[in-house]
């Protein structure tokens, strides 16, 4: 696949908002889950009785 330029890659044939909106939100949510998991585990190790930091 040849995109030619960064602009053409970002524009995704004029549908960039839909494509990057999908990938961006997915990356954000998965990253957020990972951060919450690390925080919950840390909290549980420090004070196992405390309710988890993660919802």
């Amino acid at each position, binding site marked *: *696949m040849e*995109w030619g330029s960064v602009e053409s*890659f970002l524009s*995704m*044939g*004029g*549908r960039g908002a*839909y*494509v990057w*909106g*999908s*990938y961006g*939100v*997915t990356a954000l*949510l*998965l990253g957020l*889950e*990972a951060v919450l*998991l*690390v925080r*919950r*585990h840390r*909290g*549980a*190790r420090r004070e*196992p*009785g*405390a*309710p*988890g930091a*993660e*919802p």
Partner: protein
Amino acid sequence: MAIRIFQFSSPQTFYPLAGRLIPLFWVLAALFSAAGLYTGFFVAPTDFQQGEVYRIIFIHVPAAWMSMFIYLVMAGWAAVGLVLNTRLSSMMAQALAPTGALMTFIALWTGSLWGRPTWGTWWVWDARLTSELILLFLYLGFMALQASIDDPRRADKAGAILAMVGVVNVPIIYFSVKWWNTLHQGASVSLTRAPSMASDMLTGMLLMALAFWMYAIAAALMRVQSIILERERHAGWVKDLLEPAAVKGSP
């Protein structure tokens, strides 16, 4: 063999095992997503009718597969916990639910962003879309039910029953596009016939599916570690684990 399985089915032995497995699954998730994204964006060709927007498929389909698969695994663990009364099984079910809900949300979100430019609508009350939305509510209902009951063992039982009843929704989601008239198209990849996708597209999608799978395992193992510590906080081994200085003297 049986002895080893029972050994690992105790939270005490599973906790360190999970700790050793988690980095492995993170690495696998990173490798598969790097390969999958590269294939999806730089190897897979443009689609003949949709152009570039079809590239949403590389996260939409893996997330949708995982949303159904995680539910089955979750209900399976919950059922094992209910029948055999094993603590760890119920903890696994509890650990899988939020990740499954997240996968369901991602499938719905990316589907909406894909439906708007191709079908012409963000949402339609089609059998496939509606049953996937019900799956999200089943996950949320399972989580809320468990959280609402203070006694963990009773919470496990109630959750298990809800999870097992909800299993009926999974085949409905999967076969909805065959059983009824839907706006959602049929499956491009199934066990019964050759995939209706160009091979590079299929490779990208399968790599991303493996990435999501590895991610889900890593996330569930991390969450089950926290759940083990939170639930077993009164057990001696947790105290020993968290205060290593105190156990130095013991053999």
